[in-house]
Structure formats: structure tokens, C-alpha cells
């Protein structure tokens, strides 16, 4: 089906996330206003105003009541999804890069960039049920990895936190003690910056995308490498279909060199791979800049991509897609 082009952001997209019901799509971009859209027809529902810098990331609580966003303005904010009012602001000393609610939405993990001599850090915050009781105290702060941490997500049962970033190593931390439990094997791990990390629906496995032109599938509990998907472009974004055994990789040539070459050279396609055979199934073209964000609707019947070009493209799959046999 024809994709729905959603033009609401003025700057490159950075992150996309569906709520659990799959009726809302939240988008973050380098302009300062995270936006919520109807996931069905791409109509804009509203924006969340209050950030004063590029918004890098967001997450939605299970009941779709709370939104958390992380921004380059050195804050993370909690919002009321329905009214768009900011409920609380977490202040940091450096830009926040990723946020993730835990199972049960009582905790959130927030990563901050290395900035002005400060090293990058992973913070765990308690999220109060009533915003009145919310405090900015960190339950735990983890430090150690060199360079930026691009993404940190909760492991199964909130027992661990999995992080990946510029040092191209995936790490598993104990979320209680802050101890480093596991590191990805040097041989097997990515060779360049890990740009994205996403969990399967049941949290059992993780998919990481890297600038080394590959994506890797890991077991969340043991951090064993399960699969490797090789592509022709640096990978900026990854997503897993909740319905079929498919994954999507998005990326493209570095944004800084895009203008110097033909748009065909950039390969700004979202590429579909078979999850178990690691073979490419197909691609969805359309963006005229690298793809920075990808998200699957929880029903697995549509997905959206956000690009450096400032567009969100919402794709509802044709029936043919569900009949693919390879």
C-alpha cells in the first residue's frame, strides 16, 4: 500500500515508538517537540512542548498514560500523554540519549552522554505512580564504558540492563548492584559504534545495529550471539516484527556525505531480513536521507520509518507481505 508520509518535524527524525495498543505513534526529532500521531491514518494528534534541544528518545508506559522523553537540553521529562502537560523534569549535567521503562513501569533507565569532561552514565530512576511524589533521585548510576552509550534497555524481569554504544561492546549490568555481569565476545561483537538496540516482545532476545554494516541478534539472558545480518550500509536503526520472523534494518551513508552522491548511492532503504535464515527478503525505498528510526506496530501489520530527511513514513503491509515464503 502507499505509505503515509507524515511531515510534522522540521529536523531529522531520531526515534519512533508505538504504544502497546498500537494505536498511537510517538516520534522524536532534532526539533524540540516530540509528536504523537494516530498510527492508523497518520493524523497528528499533538505535540509535547517543553524541551529546549534535540529530542533523542522516548518511551511510553504500558497503560499509555505516561511518556518519558530524553533530550539534548540535558533533561528527561515525564509527560501526561493525554493532555501533553509535563509532569516532571529530570535534570542532568549532560544530554540524555536513551530512556526505557521497566516491566511494571516503576523504574526507568536513562543514559547520558559524555559531556564537558563528564563520562557517559546510565541512571536508574524510580517512577512514582503519582507525579506529586516523583523525585529526581537516582536509584543507581552506572559508569564505565568509554564514549557515548547509544542505548540501554531493561533485561528480563528488570534484573539486568543491557547497553551498547560507541565502544561497540554490548554489556549486561546487574540492575540491583550495578555490577558488570557480561560483555559481548570480542570476536563476535560489532566492530564499530552500536547505534541501536531493541528488544523482542517477550524480551528474550535483542537486536543490535551498528555502523559496521551489520546487525546482530543476541540472547538477552546469556548474551550469546545467535544471528548476524550483513548489509551494505551502516545500520542506524533496527526493528523486529512481532508477528513474523522478520527484522528490518535502516540506515544509509553517513549524513555528512549524503549531499556529495547520488541518492541511489546512499541506499536509504529499509531492508527486510528473514530472522532465522539471515537472508534479505526485500526493501522499502522512499527516504531521501539515511533512516534514523524504525518501529513496528505491535500488531505486526504496519511499520514506520523516520529519516534524516525529516519525514516519517508509515507503511501498512499489503496482504502479499504476509504470504512471503522463502
Amino acid at each position, binding site marked *: 500500500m502507499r505509505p503515509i508520509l507524515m511531515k510534522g518535524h522540521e529536523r531529522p527524525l531520531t526515534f519512533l515508538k508505538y504504544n502497546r495498543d498500537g494505536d498511537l505513534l510517538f516520534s522524536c526529532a532534532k526539533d524540540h517537540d516530540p509528536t504523537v500521531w494516530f498510527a492508523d491514518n497518520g493524523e497528528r494528534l499533538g505535540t509535547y512542548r517543553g524541551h529546549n534541544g534535540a529530542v533523542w528518545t522516548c518511551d511510553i508506559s504500558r497503560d499509555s498514560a505516561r511518556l518519558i522523553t530524553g533530550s539534548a537540553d540535558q533533561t528527561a521529562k515525564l509527560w501526561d500523554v493525554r493532555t501533553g502537560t509535563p509532569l516532571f523534569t529530570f535534570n542532568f549535567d549532560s544530554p540524555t540519549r536513551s530512556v526505557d521503562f521497566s516491566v511494571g513501569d516503576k523504574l526507568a533507565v536513562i543514559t547520558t552522554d559524555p559531556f564537558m569532561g563528564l563520562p557517559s552514565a546510565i541512571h536508574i530512576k524510580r517512577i512514582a505512580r503519582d507525579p506529586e511524589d516523583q523525585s529526581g533521585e537516582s536509584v543507581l548510576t552506572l559508569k564505565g564504558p568509554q564514549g557515548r552509550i547509544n542505548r540501554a534497555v531493561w533485561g528480563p524481569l528488570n534484573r539486568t540492563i543491557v547497553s551498547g554504544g560507541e565502544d561497540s561492546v554490548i554489556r549486561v549490568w546487574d540492575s540491583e548492584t550495578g555490577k558488570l555481569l557480561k560483555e559481548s565476545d570480542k570476536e563476535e561483537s560489532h566492530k564499530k559504534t552500536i547505534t541501536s538496540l531493541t528488544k523482542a516482545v517477550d524480551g528474550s532476545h535483542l537486536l543490535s545495529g551498528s555502523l559496521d554494516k551489520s546487525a546482530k541478534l543476541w540472547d538477552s539472558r546469556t548474551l550469546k550471539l545467535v544471528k548476524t545480518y550483513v548489509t551494505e550500509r551502516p545500520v542506524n536503526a533496527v526493528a523486529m516484527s512481532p508477528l513474523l520472523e522478520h527484522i528490518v534494518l535502516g540506515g544509509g551513508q553517513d549524513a555528512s556525505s549524503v549531499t556529495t552522491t547520488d541518492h*541511489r548511492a546512499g541506499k536509504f532503504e529499509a531492508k527486510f531480513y528473514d530472522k532465522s*535464515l539471515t537472508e534479505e527478503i526485500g526493501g522499502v525505498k522512499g527516504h531521501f536521507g539515511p533512516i534514523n528510526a524504525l518501529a513496528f506496530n505491535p500488531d505486526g501489520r504496519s511499520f514506520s520509518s523516520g529519516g534524516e530527511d525529516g519525514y516519517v513514513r508509515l507503511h501498512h503491509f499489503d496482504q502479499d507481505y504476509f504470504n512471503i515464503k522463502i
Partner: protein
Amino acid sequence: MADVMSMEDLNASAARLNVDLDSLDLDSIRLPAGETFGIISDDEDLKEEEDFEFEEGFGNIIVVDNLPVVPKEKFDKLEGVVRKIYSQIGVIKEDGLWMPTDPDTQKTLGYCFIEYNTPQEAELAKEKTHGYKLDRSHIFSVNMFDDIEKFLKVPEQWAPPESKPYTPGENLQKWLMDEKARDQFVIRAGTDTEVLWNDARQSKPELVYKRSYWTESFVQWSPLGTYLATVHRQGAAVWGGATTFNRLMRYQHSQVKLIDFSPGERFLVTYSSQEPSNPRDTHRVVINIFDVRSGKLMRDFKGSADEFAIGGTGGVSGVSWPVFRWGGGREDLYFARIGKNAVSVYETETFGLIDKKSIKVENVVDFSWSPTDSILALFVPELGGGNQPARVSLVQIPSKEELRQKNLFSVSDCKLYWQSNGEYLAVKVDRYTKTKKSTYTGFELFRIKERDIPIEVLELENKNDKIIAFAWEPKGHRFAVIHGDNPRPDVSFYSMRSGTNIGRVSKLATLKGKQANALFWSPGGRFIILAGLKGFNGQLEFYNVDELETMAQAEHFMATDVEWDPTGRYCVTAVTSVHEMENGFNVWSFNGKLLYRILKDHFFQFLWRPRPQSFLTAEKEEEIAKNLKKYSKKYEAEDQDVSMLLSEQDREKRKMLKEEWARWIGEWKRLHEEEKLERQKLRDGEASDEEEEYEAKEVEVEELLDVSEEVISFD
């Protein structure tokens, strides 16, 4: 060394120049390249020290022997003569000429010492005057003073050299005996150099040999594929062997930049050019010719770059490579280079000039050998503002007899194209129009093998078309031309025969508006690839010239190179590292089917291993062509087997992957199930895993809307 300024001085001069030192970022200052402002860097200190050491030795002194023995009266005269000869070559040091005399007779001793300022000058003097004939009985014998030790060590008695027992070498042509008749190629990507089999049946290459840092700049196959040459700082080396690549021979030539094999791979030419110590001088060029098998230096040529730079432009520092072009077919009999107003032809028997003389040709600018015969084609441009016409002439070697000559008028440039069997020579002639403002192009076609070498003139239908590319069909009688204007030029095919008349050129076809700028004939002829490289983004058209039809159209985005394999069965298009993205190569069948695709970052080189000429006689080849069906049966069966095996393997592999995946999924499901309660606790008892909620139930509801009874009459 510049004087070291103290901090006070620095501050003082800064104050004087009105410069605020605190606001100045010293690291940001970049001196223009080559400018030192009198500050000598540490590196150059080192270099100077080296030079200093040279001066300590006697590298700049030569010994000239076989001078006439003269009495005292004639001493000054002789000294004058010697000084005159040797000061032409370089600056003789003050008191640098010393001719000892016999203290008793006051006569000279027949030798002298000359000290130059630099060892380079001394070396040049040795090269230039060794063997110089002062008169019949006095032929100079010049040696470096430093060589004296070497001569002292010569044993008095001659001892026969020890002959080594013969050890049979490896079969260097083992690769030709591959059971599957595959071809090899070499690729260079990153620091790795790999030799691979092209296994088209399996749709993948198979590694033969891989080595990191095998070469320092590039690799090159010898023309018959026996050797792989690598280039290093100390010289060149060739590698080969039956199974792996062992080093067979080294050729010492420091700072070697370029290499070239003779067509029969008997000789290797190496080239280096050295930055002159004095920037006003030209580069110093050294060219060595080695015997490939023994590694013996057969002849060396030294001189300034200017001497080698005549004819053609470009290349390294003005020298057009190869400087020496090989002639006489595969026997490597002759090699030639172009000089000022002359073409020097050397023979490999003596490594000297034929008849000890160069062929004098005023203003010759270009020449080329016939690929099969010892015939030279020479081009002399127009002179005297058109008074003397331009000329193309064919010269037989070694007799130096002119076979044919053609004068051409108002010519701006000529290019010579030989057909690979040496049967035809095409001369592309760019002529001025009457206004002399623009040029148009025509062809002069020579039929070398016919009596008196008839020449035919061919002009394009549209005379103003620019020629973008020209290519002969290998071993054939056809040629292809891309002509017209970008972006959509036309491609025309011509034959040197017209129907039954084999003495006339005819046009076969013109393809209009093709996105092509390069032509690549299959080595077997018949098929050609019209390629649009660079500006055309890698458009490819596979064309059958026999049937005059397009077999396939394809694209290899950004392709920079097209290479046919030596048998003409496969073709490779490559994107080398001139582009940052897309590096790698595609392997196509001859009819344009993409077989496989390999991506490699920093991809530098792709070269098919050439094959030597077939040993089959022409009759045998014809017989095979006639009974192709019979011969191909065996291979078809093999193909079938391989494809069966492949699909079988593929199925197996898929099955394995699926099973393995199912195991993972099962494990994950189990763990997920185990953790279910705990998860519920985390969610404050919300009984809630997606799976359960999304369970779809089909419910059938029957609703009774209305009941009515009706009596239907029964008649």
C-alpha cells in the same frame, strides 16, 4: 639549525610585531608546503647527516684509466682535454683532478683521479665515459674509486664456478590443469591480497592463497599468467607455483615504482624515479631490464626524466609508461623506445641497438608495435605550419625498411590501434576543419597482411561526431566505435569485409543513443559489453555482434572497471576504492546474467590470471567447434550434478537453521513461561502477557429473530 630564541626574545619580537602571544594558537599555524622560513626540521637534519657521511667516503671520486702516457711538456694539454671532457658532466672539485706522474721520468702514468662534488655526478661520469674513445688506442676505462676494494679481492687464479645440482622446479602452470577448468583472479582489498578461483557453478569464489601486506603498491600478473609480480621498496618479486604462491625470484631495484613484463614474459622492466637533490634538476630515472627466470640484470638505463619523457604525456612525472615497448610477438625479440627525433630499437640477443644505431625520424611523437610481427608503426605530426604533412609509416624490423607510408594533411592528432592478430591497423585521425577552429575524425585502415598493404579511408556518416571509444574485435575483423555527443552517443559496428568482398569495409549496425563510454570485447570476440562507466553510473549492455542483438542490460552502480576473463566465459565489473562506497565486484556470465556479488571495503584491484595461448591447432579448434554438442555433453552433466548438489546443500542448511531457530524459540518460550509469575508481580498482579490478550476466539452466536408458520397449499 635555526638559532633557538629565548623566551624574552620571543616576547620582545612579539611586542614589536603587535602580536598577542596568549591569543595565538601555535599549533594552528601551518607553514605552506615546501616553505621552511629558514627553520630546518629535524628530519632534514638526518638527511644532511647522511650526505655528510657520503662526503667522508670516496663515492664522488672516479678513476680514469687508459689515458695516453705523455711527457712533461704535454701534461698541461692532456690535463686540459681531460678536464674539458669531465667538467661537462659535473662540477669537478677544486684540485679535484689529479694525474700522477712517474717521479723518475716525469711522464704521466696513464691514469688520473677526478673528484666531483657529489657521488651522483661521479656515477654519471662513469656511465657516460666508460668506453669513451679518445683515439683508436686510448679507450677510457672508468671506475669508481670505492670499487678498488672489490678489485683487490679478485682471486689470482680462476676457479670454475660451482654448478648446483639440478632440482626440478614446481609446475608453474598447474592452475591450467584445474579439473573444473576454472579461472583464477587476484584481488587486493585493504591490506590483503587474495588469489581466488572463480567458481561460477557454485556462485562463489574459492580461496587459493591469501596474504596480508603481500605488496607495497600493486600486483600484476605476467602476460601468460605464470607469475604474479609484487612491488616492494627494495625491488620487485615474482610468485608462483603448483599449489601455493612461493617466491620464485627477486629483482633488486630500490624505490621501484612501475613494472612491465615483456609479452613472452622473458623479461621484466622496472622503473624508478628519484627526487633530485637539487630542485631545479629533473627527476633521475632508472630503468632496469631483468631476465625473469634467472633474475639477472640484462641492461640498465639511467638518465634524467626528460630523456624518457618524449612522446605521450601523463604517467609518472612526465614519463609515459611503458617507456620500452616490446615487439616481435611473443618471442620478445625487440624492444623500443622513443627519443628525440629517433626511435631506438634494441634486440634482446645483445641488448644493444640494432645496427648500433637508432632509427632517425624527425619529430616522431608516437609509435606502436604490431602485436604479432616485428613491424613498427610511427606517427610524425605536421610540421612547418602544414608545409610538411603528417605521416604514418610502417617500418619492418630488423631491416628498418619502410613498408608503407601515408601522408595526411591538416592533422591535429593521430592514434594507432592494432588488431590483436596484427592483421589490421586503424589510425584514428583528427583533422582540422577549414576554419581550423574545430576538428573532425576519420579512420585510415591498413590491411597489413595483404600485398602492398592497401589503405582504406573510413569516415563516419556524421562527420562532426566525436569519437568516444574505439575497439577491435580480438582476433576478428570487426571493430566498434562509440561516437556522437554525450549524454547519449551512438555505437556503430564495422567489419573489414563486406559480404564476399573481403577487401572492403562495411558498416554492420548503429545503435542509437546508448549510455556508454567504453567498449569491452570478449577475448573470444563476438560479444561486447557497452559500458557506461563514471558519469553513466555503471550502465552495462551485453551485445551479441554476430546476431546484432542485445543479450542483456544491467547495471552495476558506480562501476569503475570491466574485465573479461581470459576465456570470455565470464566478466567482472568492479567498483574500486576511487569511490568510498559500494566497493566490491560483480561476476557476470558472458550473456549478462549476474552470477554473484562480493563486497569488500577498500577494494583496489581485480585482475584475471591470463592464460597462455592454446596448444591446439587451428584444425583441432575447428573440429571442436563443429562437434561442440558432443564435447559439451559431459560438462552439462557436471553442471546438473553441481546444481543438484547445491540445492541439496541449500535445503540442508535451511533445515538446520530452522531447527536451530526453533530450539532458541522453544528455550525462550520456556523461560518466558517460567518467569510469568514474577512478571505479574512486577506489574502489581496485572495478569497480563500479550499472548493471552491477543488470543482471538471465534464465537458463533445464533439469534432467533422471528418464527412464523405458513401453510403452503398442495395442489
